[in-house]
């Protein structure tokens, strides 16, 4: 019987799932879940979606019902921050003054919204969206007629712009690249979503680099490096995230824009694991190291960590997948595209239902973007995992099922 607990720092998807999997896999020792936010651990994806547009402020769905943790013998320390790790002692020092010796430590500290190092970034009305607090503040500020400037046309920026437009805000999106969601999708999908947003009254400015926020104490405008000025009552910055790796770094764990872990979630210290957004790992398919900011990865890494701690066999790696909903239109992606992939359009974008297949080295399905086409998403994800080859001409016909396209190649 181990007296020291398995300590999990961070109660997002990754941290909660580590605790859950430990229980499910039969861990009989104590588990402690420490989180700086003082709320019952909650689902983050709705913060930038439904929660922004609901008429009354509401809480996001909890990851587990409140009584779950106590029922399962998982001790929660909510509103407590892990301040430092003492690797020699094998203990975590906490903001409440205590020190928690651990049997194993799991860092699931997530990420923080990236800031912009430009003048005026601390003005009132310049906001990020990462936590429940951020979401609730934003929801209260998105009122009809408010001039909203969103900096960055990634998932978060686009979801906020959709919510702002729906709530009657005067909405402008400034993007440094020449199209929306350029990091995650191909030009055809970018174009589809740009048009969709414009039909709902959102303005886009591409090639725009924010250089200064203006205002006495509250922001009144955003200036860009080309000398333009965009009046604003509210600015939302969505330019990516940085991993919360300070605890790990200070403890001497190997970090490089993320805590380095192997496929079991092991860090460079054999007693310490990490999972979720905060990690960087060697991607099993591509031979490159990645950070992945998605629920799928958080859950898969959490499962791998729990298994390794308890000596249970590891599972096969999963294909990562992502989703976003903007103006009610659902974009779901499986796999990770490379800009050099051959992009095959399947179906007619103008119909609002289509997919893009990303073929690597000519015909190997590496990733798929699906717009309102969950059958292609489900089939595509399975075919990617199976390493399927696809005939590009055949695949472009939406009347032929994807699984049939793949079968005809084998």
């Amino acid at each position: 019987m181990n007296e020291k607990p398995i300590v999990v720092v961070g109660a997002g998807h990754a941290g909660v799932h580590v605790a859950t999997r430990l229980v499910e896999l039969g861990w009989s020792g104590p588990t402690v879940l420490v989180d700086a936010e003082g709320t019952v651990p909650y689902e983050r994806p709705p913060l930038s979606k439904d929660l922004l547009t609901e008429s009354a402020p509401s809480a996001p769905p909890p990851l587990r019902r409140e009584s779950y943790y106590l029922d399962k013998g998982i001790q929660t320390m909510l509103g407590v921050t892990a301040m430092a790790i003492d690797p020699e002692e094998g203990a975590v020092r906490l903001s409440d003054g205590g020190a928690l010796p651990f049997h194993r430590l799991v860092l699931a500290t997530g990420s923080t919204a990236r800031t912009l190092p430009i003048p005026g970034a601390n003005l009132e009305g310049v906001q990020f969206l990462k936590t429940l607090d951020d979401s609730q503040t934003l929801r209260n500020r998105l009122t009809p007629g408010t001039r909203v400037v969103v900096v960055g046309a990634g998932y978060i920026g686009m979801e906020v712009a959709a919510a702002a437009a729906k709530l009657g805000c005067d909405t402008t999106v400034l993007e440094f690249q020449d199209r929306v969601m350029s990091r995650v999708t191909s030009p055809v999908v970018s174009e589809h979503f740009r048009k969709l947003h414009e039909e709902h009254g959102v303005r886009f400015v591409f090639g725009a680099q924010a250089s200064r926020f203006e205002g006495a104490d509250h922001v009144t405008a955003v200036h860009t490096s080309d000398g333009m000025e965009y009046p604003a009552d509210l600015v939302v910055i969505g330019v990516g995230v940085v991993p919360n790796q300070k605890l790990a770094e200070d403890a001497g764990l190997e970090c490089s824009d993320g805590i380095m872990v192997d496929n079991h979630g092991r860090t460079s210290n054999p007693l310490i694991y990490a999972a979720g957004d905060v990690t960087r790992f060697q991607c099993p398919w591509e031979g490159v190291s990645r950070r992945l900011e998605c629920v799928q990865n958080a859950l898969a890494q959490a499962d791998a960590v729990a298994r390794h701690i308890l000596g249970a066999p590891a599972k096969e790696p999963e294909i990562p997948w992502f989703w976003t909903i903007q103006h009610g239109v659902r974009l779901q992606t499986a796999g990770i595209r490379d800009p050099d992939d051959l992009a095959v359009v399947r179906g007619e974008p103008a119909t609002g239902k289509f997919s893009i297949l990303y073929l690597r080295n000519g015909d190997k399905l590496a990733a798929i973007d699906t717009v309102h086409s969950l059958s292609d998403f489900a089939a595509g994800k399975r075919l990617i995992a199976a390493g399927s080859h696809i005939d590009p001409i055949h695949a472009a016909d939406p009347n032929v099922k994807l699984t049939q396209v793949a079968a005809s190649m084998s």
Partner: protein
Amino acid sequence: MSKPIINVADREGYLHTLEWEPDTTLMETIRDNDLPILASCGGTASCATCHVYVQPKDNEQLASRSEDEDELLGETEAFRECESRLSCQIRFNPVLVGSTITLAPEE
């Protein structure tokens, strides 16, 4: 008064009798009772990790699958036309109380 229950057969064939809180979905009830469904998307019909089989006689009485639910499930290998459902899309329903549902195989 006794609490409403639902019986869930897991993937090894064991039957679990769970209390079903009336303000929760079937997915939440299954997940919070340690049965192995991931429900990655948090109940938004974006994945198919909460796939269950509902007996045809019960399923007939539920609202039919939405287009999203139908597309997601229709492409899973374990799909059964008259039984497959995403448990996140099934809110508490007296029709199902006391009946037995089965976890579909993992993808």
